[in-house]
């Protein structure tokens, strides 16, 4: 019986931000283990969405008055594309949300047949809506749709424009065929700034009564790289695993090469100290990090190093070459070592000019 009650509770409370007000401690505790925070704190109102305020404001106006154009939201993962669209649909359609929204993502089959049948059927369906409001078809991860399916979608979009609007979310806008891009208002989402991610994380920490240190939060922000989903997931795993958020625990959970070590290594390279740099690389390698992880971390830290731009571009060049080798299968310590050596040479070489 208690189980049942709990399950129901969870269903009701799946929404965010309601928990902070009146819910008792007991229910919050029991939920803590069950609901991923990324779902629990998924914004339901436009006001709660972090970042990209310009677009979100416009969409909120459209959501109130209706008559939105077809939309494409493009951006890196974890910046709130799907959240925005769902928010938009929920506010626009209100109680009719269940009937008037068709959501398809990459896990659904979306071949040309689905576009021809399922999407068209939905577009033809009759739903009573207030004037100016339209049914919405949400195509999440639209860049994974085949060309043929997109071609078929193109006319559907025009023909049913009287009754149906399309909202597409994608990571890579190049994979959406041009005719569809031309028929939609294209919105690009940028990465979230570290400050935005940090603010949200601190908010969640406060609501969940998490004990944390500053460097722990910093580590989470670093590992997330402007990806809110990753930040929240990392935070929750750290809390679940260790109960306390500090940088050590975070890097244990996320299992990335520690950025401090990598930074040290690059600074040694800048001084030309090959053997010391190699020691660090070797220790990282012995910890079992894959070369892909290492190289992407090295690149990320190189971007933020405060060095001369000419040296930086040569660094990026060498990192790119090594990355290319790794992707081709030459993922040995030797390749990484050669990268280190080349970086040292670049740093110590006298400038031509």
């Amino acid at each position, binding site marked *: 019986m208690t189980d049942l009650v709990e399950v129901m509770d969870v269903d009701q409370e799946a929404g965010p931000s309601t928990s902070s007000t009146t819910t008792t401690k007991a229910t919050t505790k029991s939920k803590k283990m069950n609901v991923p925070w990324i779902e629990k704190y998924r914004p339901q109102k*436009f006001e709660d969405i972090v970042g990209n*305020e310009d*677009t979100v*404001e*416009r969409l909120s*106006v459209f959501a109130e008055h209706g*008559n939105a*154009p*077809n939309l494409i939201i*493009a*951006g*890196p993962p974890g910046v709130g594309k799907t959240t925005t669209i769902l928010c938009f649909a929920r506010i626009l359609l209100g109680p009719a949300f269940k009937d008037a929204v068709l959501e398809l993502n990459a896990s659904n089959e979306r071949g*040309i047949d689905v576009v021809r049948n399922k999407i*068209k059927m939905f577009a033809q369906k009759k739903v009573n*809506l*207030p*004037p*100016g409001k339209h049914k919405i078809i949400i195509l999440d991860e639209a860049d994974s749709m085949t*060309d043929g399916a997109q*071609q078929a979608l*193109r*006319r559907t979009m*025009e*023909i049913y*424009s*009287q009754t149906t609007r399309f909202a597409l979310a994608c990571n*890579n*806008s*190049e994979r959406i*065929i*041009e*005719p569809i*891009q*031309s*028929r*939609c*208002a294209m919105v*690009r*989402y*940028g*990465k*979230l*700034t570290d*400050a*935005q991610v940090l*603010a949200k994380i601190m908010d969640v920490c406060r609501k969940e009564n998490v004990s944390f240190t500053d460097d722990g939060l910093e580590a989470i922000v670093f590992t997330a790289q402007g990806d809110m989903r990753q930040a929240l997931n990392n935070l929750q795993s750290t809390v679940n695993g260790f109960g306390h958020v500090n940088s050590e625990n975070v890097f244990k959970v996320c299992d990335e090469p520690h950025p401090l070590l990598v930074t040290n290594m690059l600074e040694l390279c800048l001084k030309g100290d090959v053997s010391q740099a190699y020691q660090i690389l070797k220790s990282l390698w012995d910890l079992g990090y894959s070369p*892909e992880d290492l190289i*992407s971390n090295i*690149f990320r830290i190189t971007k933020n190093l405060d060095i001369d*731009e000419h040296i*930086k*571009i040569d660094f*990026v*060049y060498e*990192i*790119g070459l090594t*990355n*290319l080798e*790794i*992707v081709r299968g030459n993922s040995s310590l030797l390749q990484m070592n050669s990268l280190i050596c080349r970086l040292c040479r670049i740093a110590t070489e006298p400038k031509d000019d």
Partner: protein
Amino acid sequence: MPPCRGRTAVSALHKPIKDLREENRHKAVHSCIRNRYNTKNRNITKVKLCLVKRTMKSWLQSSFDLDGFDDAPKKPKLSQNGSSKNLEATIEDFDVKVCIKKKPTNNLTSLLNICAPQKPVDLAVSRQKQQEINRWFQEKIKRGQPNILVISGPSGCGKTEALKVLAKQNNYDVIEWTTPMDQGIDENNRTVSQVEKFEDFIVRATRYNSVLSDCSRRLLLVKDLPHSYTSGKDDFTVLLHKYCQYGREPLVFIATESGSSKLMTTLFSQSNRDRFSMEFININAVTPTALKNVMKRVSSILNNKASQMLQVTQNKIDEVLSNSIGDVRSALLNLIFSSLKVSKKFTSECSSREETLGLLHGIGRVINPKKTTTSDGKSWRFVHNPDDLASCFQTQANTFISFVHENYLNTIGLNMNGATAAIDAISMADIFNAEWRDLNMHKVALSHCVRGVMLANDKPVSQWNPVKKPNRTDLQGQKDYAAAEIEWYKNYITPKMKYPEISAEDLELLSESIIEEIGDDW
């Protein structure tokens, strides 16, 4: 019923069909006439119509977007002001079913409708291409003879609008084919396939005159072919044969050229072109000046008609222009989207906001790098951090790199070393970017490209050069490649032997098959 839906053509959101407006008017006239038989005064119908439009909103409101924005040809204003009150009273008695909203100003479809070009001057298509189309209308078409025109061009360059406006000008009615969704059933309870319906449309749609039409001649417009044609081209040839035998009115195909579509090469191949003597008109992407003119015209309309919802400023126009190149439709949509009046301001917790950069602004910052010296005066840094710039365009690395490639020479002047360094960086980025197995490579590529070009250009030449859109050369490239390959094989296999003349048709077929192979490999 044949699937010809010319008059009731479904209005596409982005291709507003002016006919619809007329149709509404027709409907209104008809219902007026139908319901008005008890009134005697027939010559005030028009006045009444106006009144119908004015008074209708209060008691009946359509929930569809089908309403027109009646501003096109201005009806003579009410001259009998005195009698208008009287008229209103009579109209109240009519049971008019068709309703036209008076206040559609926050209705997207009607907004797009009023932005549609009415006159050839308004078109975004260049004067020269308009003349070509006009010439086709005036010289090529012979009455009662079949005639095929294919208009091709990138999406959003105004192909359909141009055709419609010019057809109107030349006194043609446009009957558009819409692929039906459902399996139709004819009177004998037999299912009719799309292909059959399409054939029916091509051959018979123009047989009978429309009651509502005020144009003397008609043409058929096909924008989307039934899918079965795209796979087999023989069926299509057969269909064209049929049309040439029975058709009476000119037929226009509008084909969107996008990088991946093989439509142009398979369906409208050279052999087909010759056999059916098709006319071809290729419309280029809209030039920046034309786009600017269109935006100017549209912005004044929007500010007029939808002032309570939109506020179009020059800033917004510039922003939009910098983002959508050569595409009128998306420019217009984005303009409406971005100039929406936002009433309430959200208070964001963080003041620093990730800047969403327009593509062209981004390009501008890359090819026009600005430096500042740091406080100690020794070192310098870029005003716009290359990595921040790169991260703005992560979702479209390919596009960005090809744009930089197209435009980097604009500001580099005579600095040869800089040019080599820049193209080195770009080509290396291209190599990095071609690696599709690792997403991290795109980031590296973009970072390298941006920083490389910015570093290569020590002293950017300040002269005004519009940013150009890179040509989509992949299709032409594939074609050329195939042709070259055929030539090479010919020379290689039979260096001395005299080989029989290969007809152009065979060559075309051969190259197509090779193109397909290449396409499969990719």
